[in-house]
């Protein structure tokens, strides 16, 4: 009881502090950001006290803390601090909501403040409108789902439901906000997130999409399990992983490619959510849950760091940007992109490993043709990881590695980067062992106990890798003896030219090899198009043509046709009422 009262007061204080940050923005941007950072820290503390949704709270709090700190150091505009803290407040209300109405209030607040921030930043409203339009599509679907839930329970409070229809509606509403196929399609999220300031981009990409994941997870906890939705989510998620990573690889817009990468990560998270819904085996469910939580941590923090990297770069095109590199930025970006590429011993590596293990174990445990779904998803995720590694390598190379050395900066990026291997170790705390299911990465016997092949499937130990790899490197270094180093110009076949190979050129092989998918147009420069966006536009144009033809033929102010419509509508209503 004492703890509950404390938690209640903490919640109130956290909210009031964020409201104070919002009010302070009218007076001083820096003061507003500092107070937002304090509120974020309080929210992390609140998260640590929480139960089932602890990971969502703590991770969101960390994302806000890093973004607010970055803004306090670099952003001076009062309008920006207003919209920034407003967006954080909206997400906070969403996460803390106790009923559907509070949830929607937070959701709309978040959408409107973010819309204003995107629009005001460039004085160009198209990205903002795009964001708002998709945001409202999401809201409409959420309202539909919440009304269905209200119809069943008779209350707006989050109560357990017996029908799965609210889950279907709200899930697709949330996926719109996450920028997931087939609603985005791959276009709106990069337009919106790519046109915000770095700290807001990180909040939109890491925390706002996380609110969508939280929403789906929350509704799943209220509704009965539905395998059909699980299968659909796995396939949509894996498809998004593959295409998000592919478009990230060929995109030459610095923040756009990160936003496409967000779609890829959200796809992976959706796949984990689908796995959670597909399996009835408690061991496997625990493992899928572990996979989901680690992915949430890995994506949110790494993406925050990478968007903050863009704050140190001048220009938007990867091929023409200018910047200088520093030790902190180079190492920080390398660690962050290693995690985003799903490599051990970072938290991203644990996430990818656990997701793939989940999918492949499910393909054994789910019998029949349904078992093919996680299998195909696993292969798509594998291909997506290949593209993701390429995209991240291109990002690090052209924002840091090939740039001339400059003054020391980007310590915040280094701090978040160092968190990647540290969090890989802390993933023990989330391990299925805690759920009474399996053990992850102990010093000995790190196998995953499962119902297959005598009780074991596989296992990894991030701790082992983190300890042994540096020791082996040190032994190698010492054994290979002293090295004599002489600085020279790169060889380049004796041309004596500086690096002229561009980021755009680096991705051109894929543009050409996958021209059927990317609809690459050959010309002076190779460019690729978003096939999904084109397909949607064609559908819209087709519908408009059909609508015009229909209206001219049958809705041409003819009173007899209107009479027929009214009679038909009457018959349909009667049928619906009686059936």
């Amino acid at each position, binding site marked *: 009881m004492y703890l509950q009262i404390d938690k209640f007061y903490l919640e109130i204080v956290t909210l009031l502090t964020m409201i104070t940050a919002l009010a302070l923005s009218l007076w001083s941007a820096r003061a507003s950001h500092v107070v937002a950072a304090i509120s974020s820290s309080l929210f992390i503390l609140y998260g640590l006290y929480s139960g089932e949704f602890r990971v969502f709270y703590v991770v969101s709090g960390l994302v806000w803390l890093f973004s607010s700190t970055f803004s306090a150091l670099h952003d001076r505009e009062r309008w920006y601090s207003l919209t920034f803290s407003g967006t954080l407040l909206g997400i906070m209300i969403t996460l803390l909501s106790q009923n559907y109405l509070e949830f929607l209030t937070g959701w709309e607040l978040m959408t409107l403040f973010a819309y204003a921030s995107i629009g005001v930043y460039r004085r160009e409203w198209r990205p903002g409108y795009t964001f708002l339009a998709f945001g409202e599509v999401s809201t409409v679907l959420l309202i539909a789902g919440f009304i269905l839930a209200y119809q069943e329970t008779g209350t707006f409070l989050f109560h357990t439901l017996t029908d799965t229809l609210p889950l279907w509606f709200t899930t697709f509403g949330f996926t719109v906000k996450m920028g997931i196929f087939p609603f985005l399609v791959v276009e709106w999220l990069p337009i919106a997130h790519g046109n915000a300031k770095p700290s807001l981009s990180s909040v939109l990409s890491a925390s706002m999409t996380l609110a969508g994941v939280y929403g789906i997870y929350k509704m799943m906890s209220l509704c009965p399990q539905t395998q059909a939705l699980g299968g659909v989510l796995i396939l949509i998620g894996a498809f998004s992983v593959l295409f998000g990573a592919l478009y990230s690889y060929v995109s030459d817009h610095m923040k756009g490619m990160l936003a496409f990468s967000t779609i890829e990560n959200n796809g992976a998270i959706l796949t984990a959510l689908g796995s959670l819904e597909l399996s009835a085996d408690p061991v496997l469910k625990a493992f899928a849950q572990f996979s989901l939580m680690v992915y949430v941590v890995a994506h949110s923090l790494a993406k925050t760091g990478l968007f903050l990297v863009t704050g140190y770069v001048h220009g938007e095109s990867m091929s023409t940007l200018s910047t200088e590199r520093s030790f902190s930025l180079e190492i920080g970006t390398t660690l962050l992109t290693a995690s985003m590429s799903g490599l051990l011993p970072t938290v991203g590596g644990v996430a*990818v*490993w656990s997701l793939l293990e989940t999918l492949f174990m499910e393909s054994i445990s789910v019998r029949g043709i349904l078992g093919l779904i996680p299998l195909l998803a*696993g292969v798509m995720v*594998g291909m997506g990881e290949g593209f993701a*590694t390429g995209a991240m390598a291109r990002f690090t190379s052209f924002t840091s590695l090939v740039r001339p050395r400059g003054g020391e900066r980007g310590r915040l990026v280094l701090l978040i980067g160092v968190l990647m291997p540290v969090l890989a170790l802390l993933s023990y705390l989330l391990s299925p062992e805690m759920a009474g299911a399996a053990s992850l990465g102990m010093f000995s016997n790190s196998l995953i106990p499962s119902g297959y092949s005598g009780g074991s499937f596989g*296992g990894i130990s991030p701790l082992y890798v983190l300890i042994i790899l540096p020791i082996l490197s040190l032994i190698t270094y010492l054994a290979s003896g002293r090295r004599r180093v002489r600085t020279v110009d*790169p060889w380049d076949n004796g*041309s004596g030219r*500086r690096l002229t190979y561009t980021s755009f050129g680096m991705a051109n*092989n894929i543009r050409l090899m996958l021209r059927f998918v990317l609809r690459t147009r050959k010309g002076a420069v190779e460019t690729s198009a978003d096939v999904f966006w084109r397909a949607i536009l064609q559908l819209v144009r087709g519908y408009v043509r059909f609508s015009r033809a229909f209206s001219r033929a049958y809705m041409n102010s003819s009173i007899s046709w209107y009479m027929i419509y009214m009679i038909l509508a009457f018959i349909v209503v009667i049928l619906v009422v009686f059936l």
Partner: protein
Amino acid sequence: MSWDVISETITQVLGVLLLSPLYAGILDRLKAVVEGRRGPSVLQPYYDLVKLSRKETLLPRNAGNIFLNGPYLVFSIYLLISFVIPVVYPRPVIFTPTVDFLGGALLFSLAGFIKVYEAMESSSNLVTLGVSRALSFSYLGEATLLTVFIAVALITGTNNPYVTMQYVQSLGHYLFLPHVSATVAFYMLWLFETGRLPLESSGMSEMGMIDDSLVYEYSGKGLMLLRWGSYIKSYLLGSVFLNVFLLPWGLLTGPLGAILDLGVMFLKWMVLILVTLVVETSLAKFRLFKVQDFLAVALVLSLISLILTVIGNG
């Protein structure tokens, strides 16, 4: 931890370290003989490594920490992998529980990732061209590696390489169609991952380089470690192919068995080298973009293996 396990571990890791360049030397020598040339000595890789270890390191003007220290990390990653998969000794040794098949694949990817980053830090046009090529095919390579490992995992019901190896030793399991298609897919992947596709050319000609271009700016100890690392990588993947896919029989246990296993592995490698020799010398040169088709076939084969297994499970 018993002395037996320690001695078995030392035998396995030293076997990988010391013998991996030999197989590259034998293959190059036999290839030269088939082409009517005298060819280099089978010990040439060792001579090259010793020579490189004595040379100074040339550091491109823009390069720094990652370029200088990356090779130590890459080498250590391959060394770490040699503890965790049955590449000489058929039973788990020290550190074996570090990763399973999938984790091993992620460690291979980590080494590839560092190689790309250290190469890019040199800011050389030719290196960037090579990185671009390497990354272009990584999506298919990575997916195939994961799919092949999972294919055997689905067949055997475990992702533990040692359990898998024991499982496929039964002839019924060995001749199981999904295992056969996974074997072919993994061999194709091994050819690609070790730069043995008839597309690639090593040396100074940049037209056909993929993997070699990543070390283009390296010299001295850095180049030695990367070359040695490549030999180890080739040995590790080749030995997994031999022990888990193609020839899972014949390895002995115990400290003495571990030493005899080095000889058994030599015989197995001769089989692999002869098959590769036939493939390498009988296929015409590829065009660069045909690599994608080659890998796509490997991926489809491994996918067929997966689908057959899942459908077989009912």
